[in-house]
């Protein structure tokens, strides 16, 4: 049985924060060097009263409306987030109610960052193949901005908030998802961490433990080492070469990261998606947004073999193929 991605939509908060805006508040931040490395010039940031669930609900509503999808056809809702509304209940339950999905819908959260979409596709595929579900709504949404200290130049230069919604279901054609490579190295847990958080009461000014900490160089080195390995491992497992792959979508971490991955793997630039300039690194939402944008920009077409690769906080990483 083949499993496919049917539709993707995404939602970006209305508030846009440009590098120029950040420079006004922080005149000592030199954006000439930062921009050249991150490739990011602006990002969307959630309002104080806007949560990850709001971004996910907006993305899902857009997906239902634009693609004329019957909500009652959804029998599983999987929400990937590291910024849940509350410690409990599960945010997926809140979203099930807000989207008015039927009570026979399975709903749960899982906590992963930039590798989350790959894991989400893997979980969805397994649930469908096992007969538990027929049509899965995979939501990925983050509001890392709520964890970021006002004077954290690195985080503000990189991250943006966003939500994405994907429908995954059985395929009767050649369209497919998989196989998957899923990997973990928890020794790197301290490289990207929020040590303490009550998600409804974040106050990074008064409580430093609620601030996002990122060891940029450590994450960079992890990426340079593990991502090319992961790509080669998936190619070897499927007995394919880089030339067999039509398009690569890496987690949109930043320009310096994607440029270096492409260089190490000797990938043609035209086969590597780069779409962080106006939205930044949107964590688990970055790959579905990139897939949707690549489709809109006609960079991918039906029948293409696409490799998706997610990597980051955990440390956690993974890759899979999508036959589009």
């Amino acid at each position, binding site marked *: 049985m083949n499993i496919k991605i049917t539709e993707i939509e995404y939602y970006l908060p209305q508030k846009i924060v440009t590098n120029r805006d950040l420079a006004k508040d922080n005149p000592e931040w030199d954006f000439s060097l930062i921009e050249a490395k991150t490739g990011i010039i602006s990002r969307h940031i959630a309002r104080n009263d806007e949560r990850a669930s709001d971004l996910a609900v907006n993305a899902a509503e857009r997906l239902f409306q634009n693609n004329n999808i019957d909500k009652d056809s959804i029998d599983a809702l999987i929400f990937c987030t590291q910024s849940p509304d509350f410690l409990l209940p599960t945010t997926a339950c809140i979203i099930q109610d807000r989207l008015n999905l039927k009570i026979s819908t399975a709903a749960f959260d899982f906590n992963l960052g930039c590798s989350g979409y790959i894991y989400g596709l893997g979980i969805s595929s397994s649930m469908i193949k096992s007969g538990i579900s027929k049509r899965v709504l995979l939501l990925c949404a983050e509001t890392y901005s709520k964890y970021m200290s006002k004077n954290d130049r690195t985080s503000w230069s990189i991250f943006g908030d966003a939500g994405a919604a994907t429908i995954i279901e059985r395929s009767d054609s050649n369209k497919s998802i998989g196989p998957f490579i899923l990997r973990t190295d928890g020794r790197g847990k301290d490289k990207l961490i929020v040590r303490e958080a009550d998600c409804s009461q974040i106050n990074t000014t008064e409580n430093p433990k609620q601030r996002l900490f990122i060891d940029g160089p450590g994450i960079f*080195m992890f990426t340079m080492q593990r991502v090319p390995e992961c790509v080669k491992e998936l190619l070897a497992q499927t007995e394919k070469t880089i030339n067999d792959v039509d398009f690569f979508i890496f987690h949109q971490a930043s320009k310096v990261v994607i440029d*270096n991955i492409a260089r*190490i793997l000797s990938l043609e630039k035209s086969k590597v998606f780069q779409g962080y300039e106006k939205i930044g690194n949107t964590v688990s939402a970055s790959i579905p947004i990139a897939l949707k944008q690549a489709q809109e920009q006609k960079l991918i077409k039906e029948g293409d073999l696409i490799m998706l690769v997610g990597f980051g906080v955990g440390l956690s990483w993974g890759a899979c193929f999508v036959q589009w």
Partner: protein
Amino acid sequence: MEQEICRIIEEALGLEVGSVNVNDTMDTIEKWDSIGFLSILSALEQRFGNKVASIDSLASVKSVREIIDVLKERSVI
């Protein structure tokens, strides 16, 4: 080779030639912050091929001397 490392750092951070020496540290080079560090690591990666990516300890160095020592220890230079 030590001088070449200094030049790589200068170029990565957009500094004038000759402004970095082996005794410099993160504290004495203003642009060597988190983003600047990525530029340095990326530049070292490009110069020495993929040998640098596997050296985890390079992500925690705090001085030019430490970079040189780590690269020497791992026979990169």
